[in-house]
């Protein structure tokens, strides 16, 4: 299905990726190649970073993109955050005499952690494979540490929800609530380390901000859940938490996008860019609405809560897809590494 045509004076209309691009600055094809041209920035969008000059093997990716499915793993990231932050909010609500919010959050945390475990098992393929996760304990593997965190957190969150709903063993219920709240922040943040401990440029280069994006996003989602599920008189702290989470999520994500250089480009483009922008708008609107109107009407609070949940979901999908995009384009792997090598060589010469 080639559209190129061979004539006496050469090949016409050949595919742009056909020839391997020779190292730039070397004799032969001076200036080297530019890799996949015209793939982006075509819709009058202003390029944030100048088009990178680099060479690659027929434009093929250097890295293997994660084999994870967005519906499983991006959902897993969102649900883990919702569960973890929800448990902390539930404990706070319980301690300050807000029983309806506390119960709603405990139930949502149980549901979310069950859902995230189901997503994880679905991604593994067979339930029996989850047992292998607890075969070793490896601090160098965030997934191993995460499995152990979940093994502790899951039963605690489950007990907290079931004992609250049934009213049985209140002391044990309080202990479980406390345990879930203590492990909640770990459940929320370990997933950030999980994705950043990969060679995927958009994730690894954002490793400093990612835990804060995840924490903010999780707080905003859990607060949204409480706003949607609890009466207005109980959700005062949730509205403040939504503000805190929204500001943290947005500030950390913006810092990431500015600091990570070329590796941050995927957060602004394509599918990832659309999810990130949608997340910003929904979180922003949800936060503003929650603070301004959430205290007055139950309906407004529920609407804002839903927007916060949707915003957090969009952010997680945006982060997931940004990683995929950055792994599929060799530019994001080669250009920063080449700059590093050149800088090192320049330093060695002086």
């Amino acid at each position: 299905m080639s559209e190129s045509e061979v004539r006496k004076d050469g090949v016409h209309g050949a595919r742009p990726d056909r020839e391997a691009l020779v190292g730039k600055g070397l004799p032969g094809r001076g200036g080297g190649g530019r890799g996949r041209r015209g793939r982006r920035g075509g819709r009058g969008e202003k390029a944030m970073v100048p088009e990178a000059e680099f060479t690659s093997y027929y434009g093929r990716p250097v890295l293997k993109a994660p084999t994870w499915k967005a519906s499983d793993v991006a959902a897993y990231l969102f649900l883990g955050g919702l569960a973890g932050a929800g448990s902390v909010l539930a404990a706070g609500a319980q301690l300050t005499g807000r029983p309806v919010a506390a119960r709603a959050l405990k139930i949502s945390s149980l549901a979310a952690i069950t859902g995230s475990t189901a997503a994880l098992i679905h991604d593994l393929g067979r339930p029996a494979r989850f047992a292998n996760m607890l075969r070793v304990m490896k601090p160098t593997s965030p997934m191993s540490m995460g499995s152990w965190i979940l093994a502790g957190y899951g039963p605690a969150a489950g007990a907290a929800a079931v004992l609250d709903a049934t009213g049985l063993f209140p002391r044990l219920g309080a202990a479980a609530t406390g345990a879930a709240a203590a492990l909640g922040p770990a459940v929320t943040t370990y997933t950030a380390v999980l994705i950043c401990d990969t060679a995927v440029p958009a994730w690894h280069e954002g490793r400093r901000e990612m835990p804060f994006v995840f924490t903010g996003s999780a707080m905003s989602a859990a607060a949204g859940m409480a706003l949607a599920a609890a009466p207005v008189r109980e959700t005062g702290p949730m509205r403040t938490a939504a503000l805190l989470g929204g500001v943290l999520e947005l500030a950390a994500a913006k810092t990431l996008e500015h600091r990570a250089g070329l590796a941050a480009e995927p957060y602004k483009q394509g599918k990832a860019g659309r999810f990130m922008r949608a997340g910003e708008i929904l979180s922003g609107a949800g936060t503003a609405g929650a603070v301004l109107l959430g205290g007055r009407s139950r309906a407004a609070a529920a609407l804002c809560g839903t927007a916060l949940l949707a915003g957090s979901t969009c952010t997680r999908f945006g982060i997931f897809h940004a990683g995929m995009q950055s792994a599929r384009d060799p530019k994001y792997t080669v250009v920063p590494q080449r700059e590093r090598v050149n800088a090192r060589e320049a330093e060695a010469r002086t």
Partner: protein
Amino acid sequence: MGFFTDTSVCIGCKACEVACKEWNSVPEDGLEFTGMSYDNTQQLGADTWRHVAFIEQSKPIGQAEPGTDHGGSPGAASDGGGTDMRWLMASDVCKHCTHAACLDVCPTGSLFRTEFGTVVVQEDICNGCGYCVPACPYGVIDQRKEDGRVWKCTLCYDRIGGGLEPACAKACPTDSIQYGPLDELRERAALRVEQLHGIGVEDARLYGHDPDDGVGGDGAFFLLLDEPEVYGLPPDPVVTTRDMPSMWRHAGVAAAAMLGGLAAVFAAHGREGGAR
């Protein structure tokens, strides 16, 4: 033990690809014409443990004169009657890094370091989480779609355990793939680079031979005739678990910020019916 792949003598016969598949019973991985080059294997993957890259360049090699008539070859340019085109062929393989990211992140201990210093997947323990796939800075290890588990070069663990050289090295007709103790291979490689520089192949360089690089040196290293990225290799790969302590620290700070922040929020609001 390890591999030294001297791409300057690779003839692109793909004997290594075939020998690897035969010995390790690696399934067929799709017979497709990609239209991108003569390289229809495309890349390393779950079912391709050796991959021969074909790079078509307009650049002279060594002291060959560009524009020299090579006997009226079909690609000859019309002006000088010659061509300055060259082929680079390179057999790629798992690098068996000294600091292997795939091994570090594997949550089950399925990936392990053998007594030969190589990195191998135990297929009966691999649970298909796929974490090693994006962790590899070289894009080597991959998941086999049918069974969900990951596969890659074992450096013929079974053969070297029995005193044989790996199938690819055995099959290589030009000794482009050499197997042996790494120190000895590095010595041989340094000599070869010197020899090539001596005959005017200035671009000859080693890749992955330095034990002080971002992955602690590769158990499989290469002699290349151009920049690594031309071959689809990363110019400066780094084992990402190197940043592990800093990443856990940042996560810890974020977790503490969440606990502290929310505690402050509840403290400020007080009991229900209190402050607000």
